[in-house]
């Protein structure tokens, strides 16, 4: 009886690890990406990197790219246009990121609209987080 309890405890502890929480968020985006496209074959850090660096020209003029505020280096601190520091986007430097689904969705909603002029797809969100998890 003791072993399953301990295993459960270890699993529960693992579930609260930042990386594990980011992984569960990715599972949700994968389900949504698959529902939108039956040919979905997994997230890509390379596509995420391209999205992060892109200057799509379809969003708001003051925020042409993610890198406008986050800088081109995901491991570096960014700065808002109003001068406030932004914690780095890379999971290795900011392990608390990508753990709270409501917070992640809030910032994708705002920033995809600001930079792209539209909502991001589930695949784009997953690609982005997969990229940041490699940084």
């Amino acid at each position, binding site marked *: 009886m003791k072993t399953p309890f301990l295993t459960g405890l270890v699993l529960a502890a693992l579930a609260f690890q930042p990386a594990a929480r980011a992984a569960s968020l990715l599972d949700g985006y994968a389900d949504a990406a698959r529902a939108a496209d039956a040919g979905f074959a997994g997230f890509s850090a390379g596509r995420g990197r391209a999205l992060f660096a892109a200057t799509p020209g379809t969003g*708001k*003029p*003051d*925020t042409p790219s993610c890198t406008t505020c986050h800088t081109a280096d995901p491991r570096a601190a960014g*700065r*808002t*246009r*109003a*001068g*406030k520091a932004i914690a780095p986007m890379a999971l290795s430097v900011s392990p608390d990121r990508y753990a709270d689904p409501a917070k992640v969705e*809030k910032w994708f*909603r*705002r*920033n995809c*609209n*600001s930079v792209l002029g539209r909502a991001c797809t589930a695949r784009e969100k997953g690609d982005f987080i997969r990229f940041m998890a490699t940084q």
Partner: protein
Amino acid sequence: MHPNAFRLAAALLVAGAAPAAADDRYSPVSDPVTAKECGACHMAFQPQMLPGRSWTALMGGLDRHFGEDASLDDATRDHITAYLTDHAADAGWWSGKFMRGVDDSRTPLRITDTPYWIREHMEEVPARAWTDPRVGSKANCLACHPRANRGDYDDD
């Protein structure tokens, strides 16, 4: 200069500056939701710095917030709007100094567009300060007022 003479001069300077400086204090933002959400991108400005109608207009257009989408869910937005308008420059029985020169027909959306803010900054702040990379934006109160988030602007 004799060291004591220097101390005396410094003391006189402080004494002379104190009455004017003590004027530049505001109640800090006491609502944790407002402090957290507004403070995510910029210092959570004290609500006493704009009329209530300005806060209502700002909070009604968060998806177009000075060039960015700063939208919130409806419940959070309504909560913050209520806090800001309840503590606005014109909310008390006696209007705050940020109402000075604000015509009833005007709804300033930027604190930096109010006559009081302009008067306080334009004479004593050199133009080069605004282009200094450490400042970057007129919304960056903390660059020059390190205790601004506590409502203390006494450092000028």
